[in-house]
Each structure stands twice: as C-alpha cells, then as structure tokens.
C-alpha cells in the first residue's frame, strides 16, 4: 500500500487539523502501541477478540473522546467504510475496542492523524494521580 500524506488523509476524511502541521508528511501505519496525546492505542493479543463485532464506524467517523472544556476531540475513522468496528467500554479509562480489517485512523486537531494497521486494539485514556488515593483522567 502506498504511503499516504497528512494532506491526503484530510482530503479523504474531511477532518482538518491545525494549519502548522506539515501536510506533506507521510502518516505511517503501525500495528504496535501508539499514543496520540491523552489516548493510547494498545494492540490486543490475537484471539482476544470479543464475540460481538461492534458498531461499524460510519464514513464521518466516531468521536471516541468529544471536545470539552480543556480537551480536543479524538475521531476514529475507518480506512474504507465497513472495515472498522467499534465497541465502546462505557466509562472509566478504557474507551473501547477497535476491530479493523483495513488500516484505520485516529484524528486530532493538534496531533494530526495516527495510522492503525488491521487488527484489534483497546483505546485507553491517560490518567494522573490526583490525591493520595484518587486519580483523574487527563484532557488534552
């Protein structure tokens, strides 16, 4: 598969990023651990897929984290419609499980695009220690 640039991905998916990010830079597609700000894309061991496939990721993508006061949106995009499925975890640090048959992408206005190879992944938020016994989720 030919390498794809940031500019080509913005053109294909319509999710724009800050103008100072280099549009000519190639976005690599990896199958290992990758981190986009406050979200980690963690590969799951083979065979750990759940029985249910999850919801197909629509052409407009799915905001796995919505923009809020101090944080920006992370939007999950299927490489080709119908090839990526999303099972949300509900609450807490784990956002949900991605199952992708083709490369999928995670877009963020400040961090650009992350290329995710076909496979199964847990998407997980970042945390920090708030007090002696409490933790809080990081917003980026």
């Amino acid at each position: 598969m030919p390498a794809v640039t940031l500019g080509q991905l913005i053109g294909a998916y319509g999710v724009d990023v800050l103008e100072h990010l280099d549009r000519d830079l190639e976005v690599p597609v990896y199958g290992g651990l990758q981190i986009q700000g406050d979200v980690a894309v963690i590969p799951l061991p083979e065979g750990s897929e759940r029985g249910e496939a999850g919801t197909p990721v629509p052409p407009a993508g799915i905001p796995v984290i919505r923009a809020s006061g101090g944080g920006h949106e992370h939007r999950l995009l299927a490489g080709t419609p119908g090839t990526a499925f999303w099972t949300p975890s509900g609450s807490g640090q784990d956002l949900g499980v991605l199952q992708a048959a083709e490369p999928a992408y995670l877009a963020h206005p400040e961090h650009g695009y992350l290329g995710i190879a076909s496979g199964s992944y847990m998407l997980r938020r970042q945390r920090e220690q708030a007090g002696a016994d409490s933790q809080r989720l990081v917003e980026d």
Partner: protein
Amino acid sequence: VVGRPTVAAISAEPNVEIRRCAIESLGWERFLTQAGAALIGTAADPGDPCQDLSLYEVPERLWGSRVNVLLAVNGTAERGGTRRRYGLTTPAEIRDPVAAAAWTYQLTKDQYAACQRRT
C-alpha cells in the same frame, strides 16, 4: 492563583483543577524548580526517543500528599516549532520515569517501551 501564580499560592489551593491551571500559568519547569522538587531520574521517551521523560519528587508539605511529577514533552510541535513541556502527577512509589509514563496508560514498562509512535 491562576492570574498571579506563586508556589505558595499553588500549594495553598485545594482544588486540583485550579492548581493545575495555576502551575501551567507559571510553567511546569519553573514550578518544579521554585518548589524545590528533587529530580529522581531521566530517561529517553520510548515513544519519542529524541525527547526525555523526567521524574521529580514533590515535597509532601507542598502538595498535601506524596506524589511525583513526570515532566514530558508534547509529541507534536506547536506553531513556531517549539514543543510544549507538561507535567503529570504519578504515584510516589513509582521511581522510574518510563514506568511512571506507562502507569498513566495502565501499561507495564515493557509494553510502554515498545511504543512505535507518539504524537
């Protein structure tokens, strides 16, 4: 405390969110220096080997509880090419910068060390 951040005002602020805003207003490195935080260790960031992770011990009397601060560098450059440094509070028991970074994502140090890309 956010408008005129000082270490004394920050340590007296009980609200974690407001405290964080005040530290960002002062700058994490200035805060750590002025607060007398002790450097525990520095390591290359596995996700971004050109950048360092530095772990500091923050005095308990200052924070109200035993906590460390992990100083990391943003994976993506800002407009103008600079990279923002930011701090994350991590458990005092974790004394290794890479293990502390791994903890923030509930990963083991070995899992985090295999990071292919951080943006």
